[in-house]
C-alpha cells in the first residue's frame, strides 16, 4: 500500500506534464497560425493597395502626359490646319515619352483615325468610334482610360487606351489624342509587385484581366470572380477563397476613378508554409518533450523502486543489527582476507577491552598478551588460518577483567557455496565458570559442614563402646552424640529449607499472632540456656498483630539470638527490641560483639558464609541460618538486614508488615533513573497511583527487582557505571524472577527497535507527559486484575491475603464477617471471593448458601480459606459453591495466587 501511495504523485506529475505540453503545443500552433494568417492577410491587402496606387499613378501619369500633349498649341494648330507631319511628329514624341506606350494615335471628333504611330497606313481613315476610349471621351468630355482591347495597330498588342480630347480655343473638339498602353507593361509593373508568392491581378472596368496570372494572349474576363465583381462594385476586402484545387487569401480593391480592380492573392498553403513549418517544429518539440517526460518518469520510477528497495534493505539491516545487538553473545565476521566486516555491540565492547581505542593497531602477538594463555590464543589463530573449513571451539580468559569466553569460530558460505568469510561467536562464560567454582566450593563446604558433626557422632559412638567407661563419661559421650546428631539433622533441615525456598515452595502456616509472644518465647528459651551473657528485652505494651507462621518466625529469632549470644563476649548484653511504626514492626537483636567488617557484612546472608575471624572459635552453626532467616522474613513480605560497626557490635533486624497496616500495597513501580531531577519527576507522576521505588543505577535496579518483582519497571537507558539500561533490560529478561515484569524504556536516545528486540513492553521518548507515562504504566498492569472480596474475621489474615493479591494487581475489598460480606457483595459484585468459614454472626457456609440461592451471584468464584480440618460432609457441602479450598496450614502466597488465578479463569494466561 505504501508503494501505491508513493506512485500517485508521480502519475499526477506525468499527467500534468503531458497536459501542459499538449496545451502549450496547441495554443502555440494556434496563436502562431492566427498571427501568421493576419500577417499574410495584411500583406495581401497591402499588396493590393500598393497595386491600386501603382495603377493609379501609372494611369494618372500617362493621362497627364497625354493631356500635356493634347493641350500643346502646336498640336492644336496642326489639327486646325491639318498639318499631318506635325501631328505624326507629336504622336511619335508622345509614344517615346514613356515606356509601355504601345501606340499613339489621333482621331477626328467622329472617331476616324487621323494618324497612328508606329505607322499603320492600312487602318488610317478607318472609323473607330466603336472603341471604348472614343465613347468614354464623348460621354465624359474629359480624358478617359479605356477598357482593355486588342489593338489593330502593328503587332496587335493588348492595350488600354488613354484618350484625351484636343479642343480649339472656343472649346470645340478638334481631335482625340490617344496613347495605347501595353498590357504587357502593366503586367511587368504588376510583376514587380509580386513577391513572396503574392500574385497581383489587375482588371479593367469590365473585369478583363489587364495583368495577372490569368492573363493570356487574348482577353480574359474575371467578371464572374466574386472578388473582382465586388471590386467592380466598388467594395474592397480580404477573403479566404477556395480555389479549384487550393485555397487562397485574396484582397480586392477598386481603382477609383478609372473603375479598374486590383486583386492580390496568395495560396494559403504557401502563405502558411511557415506555420506548417512551425507546427511541424512544434510537434517535433512536443514529441521530444513527451519522450523526455516519459524518460524522466521511467527514471523516476526506477529511482523510486530503487529507493524502496534501499529503504527495505536499510530496514532489514536495522533489524539484523538490532537483533545482533540484542544477542548476549559477541559476534563478529571477517571476510576471506581476514578483514572484519561485521561486529555486534557486545563484540565492540570486548574489542574495546582487548584493543583499546585503536583496533587494528595491535599485531596478533600483541593482542594475544591480553589473554591469560597467549600461546594458546596464537596456536588457535594459526590453526584457524591453516584450516579454513574447520569449526573451532575454544575458551579464553581476558587478563585484565578475568572475563571468560567460549569462542566458536566457523566458516560462512553463501547460498551458492562461495566462502564469505568466518564468523566468531564469543559467549561470556564468566558467570557459568564462577557458578561452577561456587558450586564446587559449596559442595566442599557442605561436605565439611556435614563431616564435622558426623565425625563427632561416629567418633564418640566408637568411644562409647569402650568397656571401662564410667557412667558420667558415658553420659557425656552420649549427650555429645545426641547434640551432634541433632546438629546434623538441623543442618540437613536448614539446607533443605533453603533449597525449598529457592524453589519457591516454602509453605507458611499463617496465623494472626501477637509478635510480642513469639519474641518473648524465643528469648525465654535462650535465657534458660544462655551462659554469661545478659538478655534484655524491650517489648511494646500494646499487642503487635501480624499474620505469620509462628514456627518460622521462631526459627528466625532463634537464629538471630543464637548468633548474638555466640558472638557476644562473656558478660556482654544482647538486647532485643521491637518497634511498631509506619505500618511495619521492626525487631532488632543487638549484640556487643566485635562487629563485622563492612565488606563481609554484605556477604552475611550468603549461604555457608561465616565471618573469617579467630573469634568464631567454638561457634557451631550451619552457615545457613542467616540466609534462611532472610528468606523466611521475605516470604512474610518483610525484609531483613544488619547494621554493624566493627569493634562495637552488630544489630540484626527484620521488619514485618503490621496487622493494622492500611492498603497494604498498591502496584509497585520501579523507576530506574540516575538523574535525580528526572527521577523526582517520575515519582511525582506515578506517586498518586503507585508505590514508587527509585534505583539510581543498574546494579541497584537488578538487585531490587530480583529481590521483589515490581508490577512495572520504568527504565532509563543512559545509566552510570558498567550497566547501561540495555544491559539491565537484558538481565531482567534473562532472570526467571523478573522476566515477566513489563519494562517501559524511558529515554531520550533512539532505540525503539532495540528496546523491542530486548523485550521491552513499551518505549517512551523523553520528554513525555504525565498522561503518557500513566497510560503506559496502567496499560501494562496485569490484565487479570480483578476485584476480590476477602472475608475473614481475623484482620491480619485479611491483610496478608490482600497484600498477596494486590501484588498481583488485584483490587481488594475486605469484610470482617458474613453479614458484612453479603452487604459488600450487594453493594458491588466482586469478581472473586476469598472466604473464611469460621466467622461470627454469619459463617462461611451460610454465605455460600446465600450466594448459591441467588442466580445473579451464583457464578462468583469463591475460594475457601480455612484453618479448620473439614469433615467429609462439610467438604461435600463446600464442593457445591466453592471452586477451591485452601487450608491455612497449607497456605503459601504462591498457592493463594494460583488458586485465585484459577478461580478467575486466568490461570495459564
Amino acid at each position: 500500500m505504501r508503494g501505491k501511495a508513493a506512485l500517485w504523485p508521480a502519475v499526477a506529475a506525468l499527467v500534468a506534464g503531458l497536459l501542459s505540453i499538449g496545451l502549450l503545443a496547441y495554443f502555440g500552433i494556434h496563436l502562431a497560425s492566427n498571427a501568421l494568417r493576419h500577417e499574410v492577410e495584411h500583406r495581401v491587402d497591402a499588396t493590393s493597395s500598393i497595386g491600386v496606387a501603382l495603377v493609379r499613378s501609372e494611369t494618372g501619369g500617362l493621362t497627364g502626359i497625354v493631356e500635356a500633349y493634347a493641350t500643346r498649341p502646336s498640336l492644336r494648330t496642326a489639327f486646325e490646319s491639318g498639318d499631318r507631319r506635325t501631328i505624326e511628329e507629336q504622336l511619335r514624341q508622345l509614344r517615346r515619352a514613356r515606356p509601355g506606350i504601345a501606340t499613339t494615335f489621333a482621331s477626328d471628333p467622329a472617331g476616324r483615325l487621323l494618324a497612328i504611330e508606329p505607322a499603320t497606313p492600312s487602318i488610317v481613315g478607318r472609323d473607330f468610334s466603336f472603341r471604348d476610349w472614343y465613347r468614354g471621351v464623348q460621354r465624359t468630355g474629359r480624358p478617359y482610360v479605356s477598357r482593355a482591347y486588342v489593338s489593330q495597330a502593328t503587332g496587335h498588342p493588348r492595350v488600354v487606351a488613354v484618350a484625351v480630347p484636343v479642343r480649339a480655343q472656343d472649346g470645340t473638339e478638334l481631335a482625340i489624342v490617344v496613347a495605347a498602353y501595353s498590357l504587357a507593361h502593366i503586367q511587368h509593373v504588376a510583376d514587380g509587385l509580386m513577391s513572396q508568392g503574392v500574385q497581383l491581378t489587375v482588371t479593367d472596368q469590365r473585369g478583363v484581366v489587364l495583368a495577372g496570372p490569368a492573363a493570356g494572349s487574348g482577353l480574359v474576363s474575371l467578371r464572374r470572380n466574386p472578388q473582382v465583381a465586388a471590386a467592380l462594385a466598388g467594395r474592397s476586402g480580404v477573403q479566404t477563397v477556395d480555389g479549384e484545387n487550393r485555397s487562397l487569401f485574396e484582397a480586392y480593391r477598386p481603382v477609383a476613378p478609372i473603375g479598374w480592380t486590383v486583386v492580390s492573392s496568395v495560396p494559403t498553403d504557401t502563405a502558411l508554409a511557415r506555420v506548417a513549418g512551425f507546427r511541424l517544429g512544434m510537434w517535433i518539440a512536443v514529441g521530444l518533450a513527451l519522450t523526455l517526460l516519459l524518460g524522466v518518469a521511467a527514471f523516476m520510477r526506477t529511482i523510486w523502486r530503487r529507493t524502496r528497495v534501499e529503504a527495505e534493505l536499510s530496514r532489514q539491516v536495522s533489524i539484523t543489527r538490532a537483533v545482533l545487538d540484542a544477542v548476549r553473545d559477541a559476534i563478529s565476521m571477517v571476510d576471506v582476507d581476514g578483514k572484519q566486516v561485521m561486529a555486534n555491540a557486545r563484540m565492540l565492547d570486548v574489542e574495546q577491552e582487548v584493543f583499546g581505542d585503536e583496533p587494528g593497531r595491535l599485531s596478533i602477538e600483541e593482542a594475544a598478551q591480553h589473554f591469560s594463555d597467549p600461546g594458546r590464543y596464537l596456536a588457535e589463530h594459526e590453526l584457524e588460518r591453516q584450516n579454513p573449513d574447520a569449526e573451532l571451539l575454544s575458551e579464553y580468559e581476558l587478563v585484565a577483567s578475568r572475563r571468560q569466553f567460549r569462542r566458536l569460530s566457523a566458516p560462512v558460505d553463501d547460498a551458492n557455496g562461495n566462502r564469505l568469510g568466518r564468523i566468531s561467536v564469543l559467549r561470556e562464560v564468566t558467570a557459568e565458570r564462577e557458578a561452577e567454582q561456587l558450586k564446587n566450593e559449596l559442595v566442599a563446604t557442605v561436605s565439611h559442614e556435614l563431616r564435622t558433626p558426623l565425625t563427632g557422632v561416629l567418633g564418640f559412638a566408637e568411644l562409647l563402646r569402650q568397656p571401662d567407661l564410667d557412667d558420667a563419661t558415658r553420659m557425656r559421650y552420649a549427650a555429645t552424640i545426641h547434640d551432634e546428631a541433632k546438629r546434623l539433622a538441623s543442618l540437613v533441615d536448614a539446607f533443605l529449607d533453603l533449597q525449598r525456598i529457592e524453589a519457591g515452595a516454602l509453605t507458611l502456616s499463617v496465623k494472626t499472632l501477637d509478635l510480642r509472644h513469639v519474641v518473648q518465647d524465643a528469648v525465654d528459651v535462650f535465657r534458660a540456656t544462655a551462659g554469661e551473657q545478659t538478655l534484655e528485652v524491650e517489648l511494646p505494651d500494646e499487642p503487635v498483630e501480624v499474620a505469620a507462621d509462628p514456627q518460622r518466625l521462631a526459627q528466625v529469632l532463634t537464629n538471630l539470638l543464637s548468633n548474638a549470644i555466640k558472638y557476644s563476649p562473656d558478660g556482654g548484653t544482647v538486647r532485643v527490641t521491637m518497634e511498631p511504626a509506619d505500618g511495619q514492626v521492626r525487631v532488632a537483636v543487638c549484640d556487643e560483639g566485635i562487629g563485622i567488617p563492612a565488606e563481609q557484612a554484605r556477604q552475611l546472608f550468603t549461604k555457608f558464609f561465616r565471618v573469617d575471624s579467630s573469634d568464631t572459635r567454638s561457634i557451631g552453626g550451619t552457615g545457613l541460618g542467616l540466609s534462611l532467616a532472610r528468606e523466611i522474613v521475605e516470604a512474610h513480605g518483610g525484609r531483613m538486614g544488619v547494621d554493624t560497626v566493627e569493634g562495637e557490635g552488630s544489630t540484626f533486624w527484620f521488619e514485618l508488615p503490621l496487622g493494622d497496616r492500611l492498603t497494604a500495597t498498591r502496584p509497585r513501580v520501579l523507576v530506574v533513573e540516575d538523574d535525580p531531577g528526572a527521577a523526582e519527576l517520575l515519582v511525582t507522576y506515578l506517586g498518586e497511583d503507585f508505590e514508587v521505588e527509585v534505583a539510581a543505577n543498574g546494579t541497584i535496579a537488578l538487585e531490587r527487582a530480583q529481590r521483589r518483582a515490581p508490577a512495572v519497571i520504568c527504565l532509563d537507558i543512559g545509566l552510570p557505571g558498567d550497566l547501561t539500561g540495555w544491559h539491565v533490560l537484558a538481565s531482567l529478561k534473562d532472570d526467571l524472577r523478573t522476566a515477566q515484569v513489563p519494562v517501559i524504556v524511558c529515554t531520550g536516545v533512539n532505540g525503539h527497535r532495540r528496546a523491542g528486540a530486548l523485550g521491552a513492553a513499551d518505549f517512551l521518548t523523553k520528554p513525555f507527559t504525565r498522561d503518557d507515562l500513566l497510560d503506559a504504566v496502567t496499560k501494562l498492569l496485569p490484565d487479570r486484575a480483578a476485584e476480590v472480596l476477602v472475608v475473614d474475621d481475623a484482620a491480619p489474615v485479611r491483610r496478608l491475603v490482600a497484600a498477596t493479591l494486590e501484588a498481583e494487581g488485584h483490587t481488594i475489598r475486605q469484610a470482617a464477617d458474613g453479614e458484612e460480606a453479603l452487604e459488600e457483595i450487594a453493594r458491588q459484585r466482586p469478581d472473586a471471593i476469598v472466604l473464611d468459614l469460621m466467622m461470627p454472626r454469619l459463617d462461611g457456609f451460610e454465605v455460600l448458601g446465600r450466594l448459591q440461592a441467588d442466580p445473579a451471584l451464583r457464578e462468583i468464584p469463591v475460594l475457601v480459606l480455612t484453618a479448620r480440618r473439614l469433615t467429609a460432609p462439610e467438604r461435600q457441602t463446600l464442593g457445591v459453591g466453592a471452586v477451591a479450598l485452601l487450608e491455612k496450614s497449607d497456605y503459601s502466597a504462591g498457592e493463594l495466587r494460583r488458586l485465585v488465578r484459577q478461580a478467575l479463569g486466568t490461570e495459564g494466561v
Partner: protein
Amino acid sequence: MAEEPARRARVLVCDDEAVLRALVRASLEPTYEIVEAVDGNESVRIARELRPDAIVLDMMMPGKTGLEVLAELRADADFDATPVVMLTARAQAADRAAAADGGADRYLAKPFSPSELARTVAELLQP
C-alpha cells in the same frame, strides 16, 4: 599411680570445632597430655609456647589454615621433626598431596575413628 612416667607426651590439638577437640581429647587422653588451640594463629603461638611432642592439625581453620600453620612450623628448626597429623573434612587426593607436600606425617579424613587416631599418634611418637 607411682609408675606414671615422668612426663606424658604432649599433643596439641588444633581445631575450630569444639566437638572435634573434645573427640580428639577423648581419643588420646589419658595416654597423652592434651593442649588445645582454636584457630591457626593460636596453634602457632601455643606450639611455640608449649613445645608439643605431636600436633593434630585441622586443615580448615579460621585465621590460618592448617597448611599455613604447618608451613610456618616446618620453617622453624624447632618443629621440623615434630610429628603432625592432618585432619580434614576434605577427602580429595589434592588435599592429601598438599598435606604431604607441606610436611604432614599422616593424614586423617573426617570422619575418623578415635582408635585410628590414637594408633596413628602412638606410631608417630614411637621412638
